[in-house]
């Protein structure tokens, strides 16, 4: 958790997060999001959550974003040409987001434990896949199975949604 690793990856992630929002080209947005997710995975690993970090890369960067790119390419979405910018909506949106950010920062500032460093762990290496797995199949067994049903429902929904209507 050295600052040497934290700040570069955090800045990388935030910069590319901004790039997602401000890029006109959807492909550029999607690729910025991939880099942002990779930075986030690095942050997870700096928090000793190797399993979550790798899952992040595997699911988000490897599958979800490829799906995004595939859809963008399939629909052949080009960069938006400069339409009439609705300045009121733009400024309003940014102002609301900034207000939200201010609230979050205020809460964090008043959180006592936010100013403490992370306590050390018992060992430097441990099998977090096993620990997460035990918890997942133990105390969280029911939610896990519900998630399975959810994914099934989503799959059926996607198949139904993307089916072409027979004309």
């Amino acid at each position: 958790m050295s600052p040497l690793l934290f700040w570069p990856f955090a800045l990388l992630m935030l910069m590319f997060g901004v790039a997602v929002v401000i890029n006109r080209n959807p492909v550029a947005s999607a690729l910025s999001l991939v880099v942002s997710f990779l930075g986030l995975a690095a942050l997870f690993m700096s928090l000793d959550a190797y399993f979550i970090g790798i899952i992040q890369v595997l699911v988000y960067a490897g599958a979800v974003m490829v799906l995004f790119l595939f859809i963008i390419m399939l629909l052949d979405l080009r960069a938006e040409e400069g339409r009439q910018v609705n300045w009121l909506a733009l400024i309003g949106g940014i102002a609301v987001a900034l207000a939200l950010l201010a609230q979050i920062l205020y809460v964090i500032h008043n959180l006592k434990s936010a100013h403490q460093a992370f306590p050390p762990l018992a060992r430097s290496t441990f099998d977090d896949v096993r620990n997460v797995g035990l918890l997942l199949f133990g105390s969280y067994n029911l939610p896990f199975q519900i998630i399975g049903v959810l994914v099934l429902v989503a799959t059926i929904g996607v198949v139904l949604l993307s089916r072409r209507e027979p004309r």
Partner: protein
Amino acid sequence: MDYFLITTSLLKIAAILFLVILPMVSYSVYAERRVSAFIQDRRGPNRVGPAGLFQPIADMFKLLLKEDFTPANVNTFYYWLAPCLAMMPAIITIAVVPFGSTLFGVPMVIADINVGILYVFAIASLGVYGIVLAGWASNSKYPFLGGVRSSSQMISYELSLGLAVIPIFLLVGNLRLTSVVRYQIEHGWMIAPFVGDWLNPWKWLLAFPMIISFVVFAIAIFAETNRLPFDLPEAEQELAGGYHTEYSSMKFALFFLGEYAAMITGSAVIVTLFFGGWHLPLPSWHGGFHWALVDGSAPGWRGVVGGLFNIATFFAKVAVLLFFFIWVRFTLPRFRYDQLMRLGWLFFFEIALVNIFIAAIILAYVPS
């Protein structure tokens, strides 16, 4: 900081990359041309050096000296980025694969992380970006089709790739690739458990789902590395080269070599998971027949020789698999795209799923 770890890691990275992987990549191109020629009753490249062995060097000079051409109307930044993205993931996957036992007491694996196989899948799934970007940035029809095909093909076959290895980790109980190798040293290779108590029928029963796993995994690796019979993204006859149609010179070479690097890492993962990694048991007759283990833990020069022997064993196994890749390429015809998709979703996906249940039932209900 642990300077010893950092130094040895850097040494290992440099050695494995520049002494093993890159020469192997360039020589697998030579092997491909040579083996394909032999299969087709030709001689193949045999001019440069003895038996054409310096052909890769000549190829390198040729590719470096070619004009590096950027077509008009391409998206220049992504056009330049794509070849780098195609080559990189293939090479950094090798970081978690144990390619030897120990040498001078240093374990021969660059990063022994506890999410080893997930790391392999995660990085391998990033390999698709190079291809998709190349197809998109070229601003041309054939590359675009190749890119779109590639993205859907990769997603489809990643499923069976991931599901196929689950029986192994049910057995080993750990995602670390070194544990998989250690398990195989003690109990025999996954698909041929002849080491240890090799008369145990339980182990041979378990080898059955492992063989199914191996077949599905190997086929999925074929699809992931865009090799024939699954080379739809770059099908020469229908897409004129697919995603790298518009590329020339060293950028084309990066795509080309990236494919071979992916092949090598794929073979290395297969060897680690199913063929015992760097393990090669030698028969020994000291007081009855048994298998002797050679590794780098012996003191003195014997340990060094043992460690080098293990590394050589590993890469010999990889080379055999590479030959298999080439052999298959020049035997089977290409699938049609709908056949490819149907095969992935309706066949291998199900086989891998059922296979997990078979392995789980054997592990849970059949007494060892």
